[in-house]
């Protein structure tokens, strides 16, 4: 939400890239940096470019053994 400047009421865990106007190419970089800072995992460029929405981020983190719920 912080990276995409979304209000709490606007955010949903099922949201896709197309649902969020501020999810532009720079946002991809910002999300990657944010994930690195918050969860200690650095997306590869391919991973970052493959993200199509919030569910992809959660799935990717979980596949690396990072529980998003925590």
């Amino acid at each position, binding site marked *: 939400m*912080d*990276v995409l*400047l979304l*209000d709490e009421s606007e955010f949903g865990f099922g949201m896709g890239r197309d649902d969020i*106007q*501020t999810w*532009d190419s*720079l*946002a991809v*970089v*910002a*999300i990657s*940096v*944010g994930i690195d*800072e918050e969860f200690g995992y650095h997306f590869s460029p391919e991973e970052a470019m493959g993200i199509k929405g919030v569910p992809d981020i959660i799935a990717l983190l979980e596949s690396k053994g990072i529980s998003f719920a925590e």
Partner: protein
Amino acid sequence: MKIINSSTLKADYSDVQHAWTSKNAFCLVSDTGSRISVKKLIFAQEPFLQSNHFAFLTSGSTGEPRLIVGDKTRSESLVKTIHTAQSADEVKTTICTLPISYSYAFINQWLWAFVMQRNFVATSGFSRPDALKEVIQNSENSMLCLVASQLSMFRKFFERTSFPKVIRVNFAGESFPQEQMNFVSSLFPNAQVFNNYGCTEAMPRLTIRHAMASGDSSNIGRPLRGVELRTDSHGRLLFRSPYSAVASVGPCGVHKYQDCDWIETGDMGEQLPDGSWRVNGRSNEVFKRFGEKVSIAQVVGELRFGWDGSIVGYACDDANGEPGWVLVASPEPDKAQVRALLLALRERYTRAHWPIRVESMESIPRLPNGKVDLVGVRLDENKKLHWRQRI
């Protein structure tokens, strides 16, 4: 050259009048420190400073002292031009709330009063608010020359007061407070309000705009009679003026201006389809970020409409060396207010225009002439971080 310290002037300003009408050149400074800077600057340049010259010491927010040298005849012509442009015939008194060593206060007020034979009333500004209130309330058909930051003091001390005897109010020196025009109208219900644009090198006026002629705070109106404006290929705003300074004196020596010279205002600008001009920020505060042209002044100007306190921005590269800027709000915003600022940014601008950080200070430092001290803002180590871009 005679150096006149504005803080030790005689009550009737007769020493200023004597300096203006005497053969010697003179320089107005605001304190003893500036006096030393002036002495250093004029030491080797004395032969150039002729009898019809006068000078101001300017350092803006750069900290580099320079003398801007004016010509008395040219400046007297300017005040007559301003007088006509503002239809100021009915003004009887001008009330000064700024240091007279500031070119705006000196030319638009003291010199105007001297040339047009009106009353000049010096005040201690908001260091003595009661005295200021009394003067403004009691002076018939008066004119004020303000900087936008003084409106917060009017709000603090005179929130529910109105001054019906004020008939002209000028703003200059920093961004025009278009977003506060309702408050200005309640303070001065009978005043015509003007945005005056210029710079010390212009000595100091270039354009004028009536407050109601545009809703855009960056619109500076049209050039005064005789003044020409243009932009160069980089969008920098340049001027030629029959009233401009004749030279600047810096540590590297004297730079004389010729009448045919185009002089930089230090701002970026553009001419609008209706012929008026718009300023897009200081030259060093307009830059390309990720390929998009970003103007700090433009973004900050729009955000001011939704924020009761002060908002300023200063240029700052991000961690990758890409040009960016930092937004500083005062007083400290709560979480909801930060959110509102960020949402306002999101609504109006793409990410490249967003600040790299949002910070706050208890109060925004000001220079003696009321302008924001951006160096002070930048260097203050007690700023509080509220948000940052993760880039």
